[in-house]
């Protein structure tokens, strides 16, 4: 901030000195001419940042606009002070050369300062993340609460977080109950409940209750810090398209040397020394290799910054270019398109029994079972606010079900409990539900079926929209799963994927990705851990729900920190936009340079106009690239391929 302020002050000072230097000759002050020269020279000197860049870039064999500007300004100053014709025809022209160099220095310095500012803003996304992690924490030490700097907090200590404060560490809730907004980490803006035993992330917002948290990771080791570091690293990784821009800039010096010396020679013989000098200076000032070289890195940084604000980590410029070409997205089913754990989706009842009765008796029998299906039933009972007493006795029969007693009632759970009397009606219903790929659990009381609990892995709320978004973009979709054909068909129908492939073993998934890659650029979306090989074999591997899993983030090319699958479309759309902008910027900068150089070579521009053109070219490219930061996901209806 201070440096930016310093930059602006320098620009203003330079402008004031140049202005004073230009105005004084018109006044009656004694030694007006000498004072004017002195003021103008001071103005030129205030542009030292330009020459510093110019000279040092020469030493490091880097060709920059500042190098050309330094040469041009130096020539103008010398010309203003020394050219015999200038002194012969009076002082006016000498001052004219000097004034022009001061104005040129002013415009270039102002341009550089503005670019610095815009580029600094590109870091904005990252700065927001960084600000989310508190610098201090309240720690319980020797029975007292003390506020300590975050880097003095140690693993295993207990931190206290008040309502409304950001959580300072990664850890586990020891006591308390609250809702926490984890948008910084997962992009999910709806707060989630946290209670004893739940994990918390540094940088997330504790909303309404006080929490005591056991510290697991602090400072640089937290998930948030890792994310920030990843984004920083990704922004530094260049996109392949930059090589094109780099190739242009390599040829810049030889081309400029040829162009400027031919312009000088040609105009020297036709127009004389002074005009030749003026044109050469103009040619040097109009050249703007900057626009070419800056176009891509700023766009890459802005795109990755934008993605990170949307809880997407794109791990480098290369992946932006791959993403834009994606023609098919393959999804893993379990845990990706679906939630990944069975839930009670329906309860059918018989006779006078209610839904609550069925769930209650099933929950009593399953109360002490660890089976995933039991958990689904217990969860449903909790959701319905049912009180579940302990069973009098129970016996789990592996692969079949549960046989339990509650008081004098005999409960039988499961399809394969032979004692259960299943009515024709119940049997038909069960066959129908099973054909939809769901699991049925009959519940019998004293051997008669009182109800059927239907359990299934449910599709995520936004899976359907995620697929629709991709379709509108013109991207094909596929689902790969190890599950049976029936279940796969049911889920594929619900989310609307173009094709599905069931009963695939992990290595078959990898092979199948290879098949899909014939004729398609394939992105694979999975959890990043079990699917790691398939992700690695695809052109772009997406890991979803990656927050908190370093492995998933590590293996993926793109990590979706939350579990919002609509972000897949956004990542592709954003990359397409970013790539088009990079390409557009390179073409634009190239044409701009050619046109401006031709105008300068034929004497249509003067030095001041030349430098205005060059700076305008460069700044417009920088702004155009930086604006990628402001891009937002479109509503479904507005997506176009």
């Amino acid at each position, binding site marked *: 901030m201070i440096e930016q302020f310093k930059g602006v002050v320098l620009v203003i000072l330079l402008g004031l000195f140049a202005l004073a230097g230009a105005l004084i000759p018109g006044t009656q002050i004694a030694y007006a001419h000498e004072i004017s020269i002195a003021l103008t020279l001071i103005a030129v000197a205030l542009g030292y940042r330009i020459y510093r860049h110019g000279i040092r870039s020469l030493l490091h064999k*880097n060709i920059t606009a500042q190098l050309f500007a330094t040469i041009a300004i130096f020539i103008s100053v010398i010309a203003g002070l020394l050219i015999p014709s200038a002194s012969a025809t009076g002082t006016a022209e000498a001052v004219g050369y000097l004034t022009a160099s001061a104005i040129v220095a002013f415009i270039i310095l102002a341009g550089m300062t503005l670019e610095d500012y815009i580029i600094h803003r590109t870091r904005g996304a990252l700065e927001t993340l*960084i600000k989310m992690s508190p610098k201090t924490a309240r720690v319980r030490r020797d029975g007292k609460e003390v506020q300590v700097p975050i880097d003095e907090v140690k693993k295993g200590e207990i931190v206290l977080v008040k309502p409304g404060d950001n959580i300072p560490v990664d850890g586990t809730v020891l006591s308390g109950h609250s809702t926490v907004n984890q948008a910084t980490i997962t992009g999910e803006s709806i707060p989630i409940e946290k209670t004893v035993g739940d994990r918390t992330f540094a940088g997330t917002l504790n909303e309404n209750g006080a929490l005591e948290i056991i510290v697991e990771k602090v400072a640089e080791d937290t998930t948030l810090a890792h994310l920030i570091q990843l984004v920083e*690293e990704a922004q530094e990784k260049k996109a392949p398209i930059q090589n094109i821009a780099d190739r242009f800039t390599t040829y810049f010096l030889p081309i400029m040397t040829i162009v400027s010396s031919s312009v000088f020679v040609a105009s020297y013989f036709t127009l004389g020394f002074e005009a030749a000098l003026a044109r050469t200076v103009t040619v040097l000032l109009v050249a703007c*290799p900057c626009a070419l070289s800056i176009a891509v*890195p*700023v766009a890459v940084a802005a795109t990755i910054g934008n993605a990170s604000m949307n809880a997407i980590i794109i791990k480098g410029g290369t992946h932006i270019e791959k993403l834009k070409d994606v023609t098919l997205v393959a999804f893993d089913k379990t845990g990706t398109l679906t939630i990944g754990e069975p839930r009670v989706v329906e309860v059918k009842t018989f006779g006078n029994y209610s839904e609550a009765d069925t769930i209650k008796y099933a929950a009593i029998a399953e109360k002490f079972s660890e089976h995933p299906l039991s958990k689904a039933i217990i969860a449903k009972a909790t959701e319905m606010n049912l009180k579940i007493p302990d069973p009098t006795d129970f016996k789990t029969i592996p692969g079949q079900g549960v046989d339990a007693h509650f008081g004098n009632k005999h409960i039988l759970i499961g399809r394969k409990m032979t004692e259960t009397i299943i009515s024709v009606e119940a049997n038909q219903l069960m066959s129908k539900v099973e054909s939809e790929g769901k699991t049925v659990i009959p519940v019998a009381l004293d051997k008669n079926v009182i109800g059927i609990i239907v359990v299934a892995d449910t599709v995520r709320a936004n899976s359907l929209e995620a697929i629709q978004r991709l379709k509108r973009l013109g991207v094909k979709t596929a689902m790969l799963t190890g599950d049976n054909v029936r279940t796969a068909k049911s889920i594929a129908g619900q989310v609307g994927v173009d094709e599905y492939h069931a009963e695939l073993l992990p290595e078959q998934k990898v092979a199948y990705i290879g098949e899909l890659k014939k004729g398609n650029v394939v992105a694979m979306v999975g959890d990043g851990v079990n699917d790691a090989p398939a992700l690695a074999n695809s052109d772009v591997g997406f890991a979803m729900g990656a927050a908190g899993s370093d492995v998933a983030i590590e293996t993926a090319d793109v990590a979706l920190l939350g579990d919002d699958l609509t972000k897949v479309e956004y990542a592709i759309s954003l990359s397409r936009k970013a790539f088009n902008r990079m390409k557009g910027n390179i073409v634009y900068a190239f044409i701009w340079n050619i046109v401006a150089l031709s105008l300068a070579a034929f004497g249509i521009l003067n030095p001041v106009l030349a430098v205005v053109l060059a700076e305008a070219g*460069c700044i417009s490219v920088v702004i155009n690239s930086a604006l990628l930061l402001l891009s937002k996901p479109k509503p479904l209806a507005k997506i176009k391929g």
Partner: protein
Amino acid sequence: MNIEKVILNASKTDCTGCSTCADFKADNLQHAIARLNGVSKVKVDEITGKTTIEYDTQKIVLSKITERFEKLGYKVEIVSREEIQ
């Protein structure tokens, strides 16, 4: 507190262009290094890549700092190293 001052040469091949580009890279590098726990001062020269860092040796080791440079795509070379406090 045990402060050491180190001067590094950090180089990267992919910036051929103008000062804007160099400033941009230097700005990013400066922020990334400054956020390391234990680093108290960082100054990156935008053109030469010469970086001066002051850090607390009890909080961070030099290899951690150079590792960060490498992860950001820089080649580093230690020019000088001295204890200043």
